[in-house]
């Protein structure tokens, strides 16, 4: 029973990873990261259910908190980059190369 949830989580995680690697729009890439986090959350809840304990759910809760904080800061960064470069493409933010 639990395996199907885990396979689903694996598929979602992989799709999220593809999004991060392929999409240039910073917001979409960011959403893909969120998708990966959610896939991990699903696996955690499924394991909690399988083991009959609340620990997995608490871990999910923490992941959500951290994700919220991450989204706040990440979006602020995207906005400030957009304000200076007029672009949300991650390929344009390649100053590390210089």
């Amino acid at each position: 029973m639990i395996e199907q949830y885990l396979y689903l989580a694996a598929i979602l995680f992989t799709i999220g990873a593809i999004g991060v690697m392929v999409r240039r729009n910073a917001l979409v890439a960011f959403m893909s990261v969120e998708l990966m986090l959610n896939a991990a959350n699903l696996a955690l809840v499924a394991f909690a259910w399988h083991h009959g304990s609340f620990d997995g759910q608490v871990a999910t809760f923490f992941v959500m908190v951290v994700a919220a904080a991450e989204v706040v800061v990440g979006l602020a960064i995207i906005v400030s980059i957009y304000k200076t470069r007029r672009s949300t493409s991650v390929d344009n933010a390649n100053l590390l190369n210089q």
Partner: protein
Amino acid sequence: MNVVFWICAPLMVLGALGLVLFRKAVYSALSMALTMVNLAVLYASLDAPFLFAIQIIVYTGAILMLFLFVLMLVGVDTPDSIIETIKGQRVLSALGALGLLGLLVFSIGGAVTAPADTMEGATVAAGGNVEGVAQLLFGRYVWAFELTSALLITAAVGAMILAHAQRTRPKLGQRELADARMRAYATSGAHPGSLPNSGVFATSNSIATPALLPDGSIAQESVSATLTERGAQLDSAQLKELTAETFAGAQRVSDEEEEEL
């Protein structure tokens, strides 16, 4: 439960694929919302009603809305180009994704070893799902919980600092604005007073209605340039005729009433 899974899971995968494949970021965000809601349903089916609520409120409600909000802020009308600029990125990404999926699927086979248990016993013992989660949060994980508060405060302050725009020139006061207006009048003859109001007609007083000058021509400044550009400007001549008809009609009615008296 199985039924719920088999309904939600394909929707979630569809949503995830939509997130990656849509060229417009708004569609991607909405696809993701679909995935999130279905995920919440799955949480409910996995005996986690508290997380179900949190998922809806925090993720779908707050975070995704935040995404959409920022999307609106940075512009929604530029779809991503589909041409890849980094050499070999797509091929390698595909290979990497395939490998990752293979790895995950392969390891899931050996991941579940303990016999299945159910949440019911734990829920009953704790006196409910929320109580169970709360006992852990404020018991074993209380230190981590407190740290998250520090994290959230820091994130909020960081976001404020990052998004804060520094004023690059001093704010102009009433005096400076008045001076600038008078200077413009002196140099270019621009009218120093306020702009004319939009026109008021019998059938329309919208801001898209241009006012008419005494000679019957249109006062362009009475309508925002943006509206003019979008073609939203109404035809004042037509309105004028309508108004004249209306006045005439009203006059006629009034005259008839007087005659009756």
